[in-house]
């Protein structure tokens, strides 16, 4: 125990000397009755839990990264569907998607 501790303890004892516990009867009253569901619920709700910051932050970071990376990317099933419905054709030595080619031909025909 240091001198500082002793001195502070003395000052605190002097300052708080007027405070006396006067709730003994209330404790007996509370002890006589069983806690109701509200008190049980409050006790459960006020339980202290500790959340380890580093692992939780790491998991969140990985989840966000995974979301950002997969966003905009089509699933292999979707990609396969696209390849099945689209076909490449060769016209005049150039290769086009058939739907793009048909759309271009239609727009030229319409403009005439």
């Amino acid at each position, binding site marked *: *125990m240091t001198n500082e501790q002793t001195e502070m303890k003395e000052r*605190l004892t002097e300052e708080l000397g007027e405070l006396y516990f006067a*709730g003994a009867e209330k404790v007996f009253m509370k002890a006589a009755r069983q806690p109701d569901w509200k008190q049980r619920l409050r006790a459960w709700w006020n339980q202290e839990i500790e959340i380890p910051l580093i692992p939780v932050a790491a998991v969140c970071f990985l989840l966000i990264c995974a979301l950002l990376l997969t966003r905009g990317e089509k699933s292999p099933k979707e990609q396969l569907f696209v390849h099945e419905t689209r076909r490449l054709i060769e016209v005049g030595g150039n290769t086009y998607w058939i739907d793009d080619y048909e759309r271009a031909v239609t727009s030229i025909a319409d403009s005439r």
Partner: protein
Amino acid sequence: MREVRTLLEAAEVVARLREKDESALRYVMDRYGDNLLRTAYLLVKDRQAAEEAVQDTFLQAFRKIAQLNHPDQLHAWLVRIVVNRCRMQQRTWSWRHIFPTLGEKRLLLESDEPGPEEMFFDQWQSGSVSHAIHQLAYNYREVITLYYYHEMPIAEISGQLALNLNTVKARLARGRAQLKDILNREQEARP
């Protein structure tokens, strides 16, 4: 000799508490009540809230006395319960601030502006160590209260608060520095 008597006394009191003897509970409240109330007051800054925390502490101790394995540590065990109770009150307080409607009535009554009585009390208390401790953040208040008021060594504080030894050291160092600043400022401001 005195220590041996205290140990025997603690063992006997705990044995009687286990038998749900109310006179033993009264004895414990008479013996430790004031000390726990002053501890709680330093932590929660409010006389009424401190009184409630201490009542709940004795109630919990009476109901769960079987969990106390070493009767000679009765006082330390009670201090741990009261510290946890005060923490719980602080948490409830913060919930009301996150969801203001939960405590709307109470918040309306508790104006931020201090009344004349509060201002007088603040002025009278200004410069006191307890008033300075009340101005610290809760984390520092806990460590400072146990260190100065209970004169606990750092290792014991670490056990009481279930905190790492280095965390306690860091909080104590910061808390002491802030406490010193507050006391110096208040001393300079005094006429």
